[in-house]
């Protein structure tokens, strides 16, 4: 990989597999790893400073990806604070990179300012006619029982249940090519990764 290394750090292994697959699709040479979860981010960033690639100043660009959850602005603010507290530069806005020797970018993953990688992937297939069956399934369950779980992770499982690889989660589904990378749903993420 030479001296100019690029890293993307995601929250979990699902995001990692999606980003790895998308980066491969885009022919990007980038190392994608996990932070061990958003609660681990402060400790992760502090430890990252001691990692050989960073201590030897071999890293040109790094990006932190975090779920928007309920509030993309709050999620961005949180990552920005943790970066600065750990001695890293931070970008001023979501989806951008710092203008520093080590470029640091932050991308908050979600749809319309909320959610997570599953929401982005579901959006990419939401125009398919059979996608309405997913919502119908949850509506039916909710109507006939007290259960009302319609989280995006659950929706991915239901969507995948009709495919050959019926037990895949979002990351494995990405590896197997179940998400259409050409969908506009991935455009913000693709633009960010291309700017690495």
């Amino acid at each position, binding site marked *: 990989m030479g001296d100019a290394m690029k890293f993307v750090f995601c929250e979990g292994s699902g995001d990692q597999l999606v980003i790895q697959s998308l980066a491969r699709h885009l022919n990007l040479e980038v190392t994608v790893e*996990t932070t*061990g979860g958003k609660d681990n981010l402060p400790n*992760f960033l*502090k430890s990252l*400073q*001691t*990692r*050989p690639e960073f*201590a*030897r100043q071999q890293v040109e660009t790094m990006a932190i990806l975090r779920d928007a959850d309920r509030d993309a602005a709050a999620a961005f603010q949180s990552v920005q604070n943790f970066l600065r507290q750990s001695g890293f530069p931070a970008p001023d806005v979501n989806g951008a990179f710092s203008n520093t020797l080590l470029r640091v970018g932050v991308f908050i993953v979600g749809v319309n300012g909320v959610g997570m990688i599953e929401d982005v992937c579901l959006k990419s297939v939401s125009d398919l006619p059979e996608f309405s069956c997913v919502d119908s399934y949850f509506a039916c369950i909710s109507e006939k029982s007290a259960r009302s779980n319609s989280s995006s992770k659950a929706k991915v499982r239901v969507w995948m249940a009709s495919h050959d690889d019926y037990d895949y989660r979002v990351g494995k589904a990405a590896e197997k090519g179940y998400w259409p990378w050409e969908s506009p749903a991935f455009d913000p993420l693709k633009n960010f990764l291309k700017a690495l």
Partner: protein
Amino acid sequence: MLTSLHINNFRGLRDLKIEPLKRVNLITGQNNTGKTGVLEALVLLLSEAAPNQNLRNQLPNLFRTVGGDYHENYWKWLFFGKDVSKHIEIKGSFDNAKELQFHVKPNGWRAGEQQPAQLRHSGQIGNSPCFLSGNGDSAGLKPAVFSTHPSNPTQDAVDYQRVVLKRRKKQVEKLLREIEPRLEAVEALRIGDQNSSPSLIYADLGLSEMIPVTQLGQGFNRLLDIYSEIVVEDAKVLLIDEIENGLHHSVMPVIWKGLFLAAKEFDVQIFATTHSWECILAADEAARAGEKYDLALIRLDRVKEDIKATVIDEKSLSTAKELQWEMR
């Protein structure tokens, strides 16, 4: 105890600062990043604490093997870039808030150039006069060197007899029992003719016959060697090069348990170098077993033309292990 070390213009180290130091300091890094150089710098800084050992003159062969013209092949190379006009400066800070600096400055201090405070002459290395400065001294910080050169069982027996002479046998046996619970006693014995049979060290494991320690594990022998040296020489700073050398990685937990015990029991500070990840993990585990995490993992990295030190603390090492980062 040393709390920080700052090395200027020494070997490949133009400006290296290591801080904070702990009771046990494990130095890692790629080849030619100056790990052994740091140990040599410590020898120079602390050598006045061991005046009888003539460590400075022995420096070329303490950790290395030097051939031919020593001046050309060793002493000149102590100066950064082999530039003998450079000012070698090795500064140690201690936990009593005092500082000690070791200097080699062949051209001396020019008229008008400010000399370091409390400058005093301190012998020479090669052809160059040495100086010490600062309000501290190395008294009570006698170094002991453990290189990759193989040990000599006969000399080990002589050293052990001095352990007995100093009435510290029981203390050494007690420590060794931590890693070999069957141990009842360690003795230096001469079996056979006095002239032709040198003494060797034997261990009593409660078997029908005592067993030469050379037949026991490598970890046991290494620790016996280290404990004996600490006791006999009253060493307070252990400088151990490539600690894993000649040892199977499975022995490392025993070695580190023993070293942390020694650090506490004898109040010694340890500086060791390693290339081994298993060694780092074993040191970390031994440190976690103690009342206080007293390990600094120090990695030396080449950053452009310089060597920089990164001190990796307990939390960062824990993260590295969890996420399987390569930290050497």
